[in-house]
């Protein structure tokens, strides 16, 4: 595959990065602009289990969800909103279901746009159905079905296409619980990257054909798994200094989508998106304190620093005292965006950006490396060897460790255990070869005994 790799940064200086602005803004849906001078909420929802019983029930559920969100937006005076529909399995496995739902949602959005002029757009995120009972099956029949799902939603109302793809997951799972950084580097940096660019070439074509937006991918299946296992400050399932490595390597992996034709906005749970924005200049969705309904994190404010869309990740549709859950979280997110947009209008965007970032900079190493100045550094280490998907990933991992190491001699307080684990990580990473082909061969050999690993998934 001859993709055009990133070899330089889109931003000259990290100081130029801020929320609500991107180098390559996007216009889509009903008059909605992303990264063009203001932020919008991206409301994300899951149907109740009972609704999943039939297509009709699902359609009704999504109609209610869509109406509820838009109704609340106009009741409180918000000028814009994005809705993201992450497919439940049935919706992707039956492409016509996804299509009908996209259509129904878009119809309601159009009614609100016509009546109130509220700017809005719809992102659809098919489920990655290429996981099997025995092993992943990334390039076979389920892949064809997945692409069919993309075609169907793209031609029936979805404005933006995304997915949280699974390439490399089984290898990653085995590696992360054993602190195996070489395995992490291989599963995310090599296998993940290969799968991302493979599918995004096809997804971009579909998007182009239907004149919709090929938005982007996140390393949810790997880097976020590491983040969740790492947990809170007191959890001891994974050293946070090691989760940092998974996150750093997820950036070049997710970057591959943009090299294969995606244009943003990056999807919400991609905490690596700040690194990607620094490199590619694309707008990004982020989540943090507005997504506690879905999961905790250690950078609830910092995540806002350079966001163009602000998301709640996912919430089950149900009643709260204050309305339905999508209304509650939609309103909270929209007020966060109103705050950011007011800051922009008042000329204080960068002050707000800095305060968001500093609130969590020293909360945890995972937050520290994603502070936009550090994220920029990691981006530089990636584009330095942009054409070599291995070296750039290794660079990112080492740079992230160096950043944490330097930070620990400043205001980032690490526990003794974290320092020890960081030292081991640095040592382990430095012991790796610089030769991509050597690294790949070593790892393929190691995996030859792993039953659930199929090299052909990645073109080997």
């Amino acid at each position: 595959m001859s993709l055009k790799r990133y070899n330089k940064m889109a931003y000259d200086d990290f100081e130029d990065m801020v929320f609500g602005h991107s180098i390559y803004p996007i216009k889509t849906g009903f008059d909605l602009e992303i990264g063009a001078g203001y932020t919008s909420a991206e409301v994300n929802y899951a149907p109740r289990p009972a609704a999943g019983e039939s297509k009709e029930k699902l359609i009704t559920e999504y109609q209610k969800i869509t109406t509820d969100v838009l109704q609340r937006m106009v009741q409180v005076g918000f000028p814009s909103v994005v809705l993201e529909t992450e497919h439940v399995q049935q919706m992707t496995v039956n492409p016509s279901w996804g299509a009908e739902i996209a259509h129904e949602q878009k119809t309601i959005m159009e009614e609100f746009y016509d009546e109130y002029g509220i700017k809005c757009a719809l992102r659809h995120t098919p489920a990655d159905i290429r996981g099997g009972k025995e092993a992943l099956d990334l390039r076979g029949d389920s892949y064809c079905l997945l692409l069919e799902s993309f075609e169907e939603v793209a031609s029936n109302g979805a404005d933006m296409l995304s997915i949280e793809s699974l390439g490399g997951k089984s290898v990653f799972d085995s590696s992360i619980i054993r602190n195996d950084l070489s395995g992490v580097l291989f599963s995310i940096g090599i296998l993940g990257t290969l799968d991302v660019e493979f599918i995004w070439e096809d997804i971009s074509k579909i998007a182009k054909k239907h004149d919709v937006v090929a938005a982007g991918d996140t390393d949810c299946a790997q880097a976020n798994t590491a983040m969740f296992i790492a947990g809170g400050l007191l959890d001891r399932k994974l050293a946070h200094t090691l989760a940092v490595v998974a996150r750093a390597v997820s950036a070049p992996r997710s970057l591959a989508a943009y090299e294969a034709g995606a244009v943003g906005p990056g999807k919400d749970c991609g905490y690596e998106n700040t690194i990607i924005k620094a490199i590619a200049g694309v707008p990004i969705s982020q989540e943090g304190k507005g997504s506690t309904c879905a999961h905790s994190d250690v950078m609830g404010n910092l995540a806002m620093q350079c966001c163009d869309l602000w998301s709640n990740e996912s919430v089950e549709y149900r009643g709260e005292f204050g309305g339905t859950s999508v209304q509650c979280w939609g309103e909270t997110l929209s007020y966060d965006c109103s705050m950011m947009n007011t800051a922009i209008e008042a000329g204080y965007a960068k002050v707000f950006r800095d305060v968001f970032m500093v609130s969590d900079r020293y909360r945890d190493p995972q937050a520290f490396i994603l502070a936009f100045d550090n994220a920029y550094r990691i981006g530089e280490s990636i584009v330095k060897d942009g054409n070599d998907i291995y070296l750039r990933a290794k660079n990112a991992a080492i740079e992230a460790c160096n950043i944490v190491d330097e930070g620990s001699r400043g205001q980032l307080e690490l526990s003794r255990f974290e320092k020890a684990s960081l030292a081991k990580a640095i040592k382990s990473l430095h012991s790796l070869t610089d030769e991509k082909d050597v690294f790949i061969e070593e790892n393929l050999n190691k995996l030859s005994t792993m039953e659930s690993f199929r090299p052909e998934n990645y073109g080997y």
Partner: protein
Amino acid sequence: MIDINPQRILTRYNVKVEKEMTPEEVAEKLFPVEVNIREVAKAVFEGDEDEVVESIQNAINNGLDPLSLINNALMVGMEIVSTLYDDGVLYLPDVIISAQAMIEGIEYCKERSGQEHEYKGKIVSYVVEGDIHDIGKKIVTVLLRAKGYEVVDLGKDVCVEEVIAAVKREKPIMLTGTSLMTTTMVGFQDVNSRLLESDINVPVVCGGGAVTQDFVSQYELGLYCEEASDVPKIADAIINGLNIGQLMKEFHKH
């Protein structure tokens, strides 16, 4: 770019409450005295498979019986690791790495002794039908093996039929299943019913993202498990003779 003193706005509680001694220092005080056994236990602590094998060979060379090393050296080393984890000194991957090394050691001992090692008990583990997330099961399986249990791992997306068949075939002391999503959780119900129908009163330990104590409390055979590291404790309790009622009392999460 703004910067401030973070101590004014947040508290890194993990740093605040970190114990004084390093894991190595704590372990040092707990290792057995006998020098051959000590080396094996240390190797398990280090999680180094080669060292484990080497130290076992040395101990054998020095006259110790291979099969006895399993309980007296390998399991002792593993017990120290588990204790350190429970006491907040080690992290889970360390436990898994040590467990892996210890399992290698057990295999080596069995080879060298030519005899069968008696497991503490047999457990069947699986991921519910419709679910392909198996990190939880992977962790549980390793931890159980590290505690001396034989684990029959049925894999992911396992239908009820297969689970029941495996239970009938393997006659385990316990069944452990994980489910990440609320939509697939109902599989536990079917398993529970089918086991009761077949008069098989084996405890079914349920865990995973979607599972809650309230949910599991609905099933006669159901035991809720929040932490992967608790599963071996439940297994030990079963070996010690607790019945399902007593297990529910003991391990009920409020």
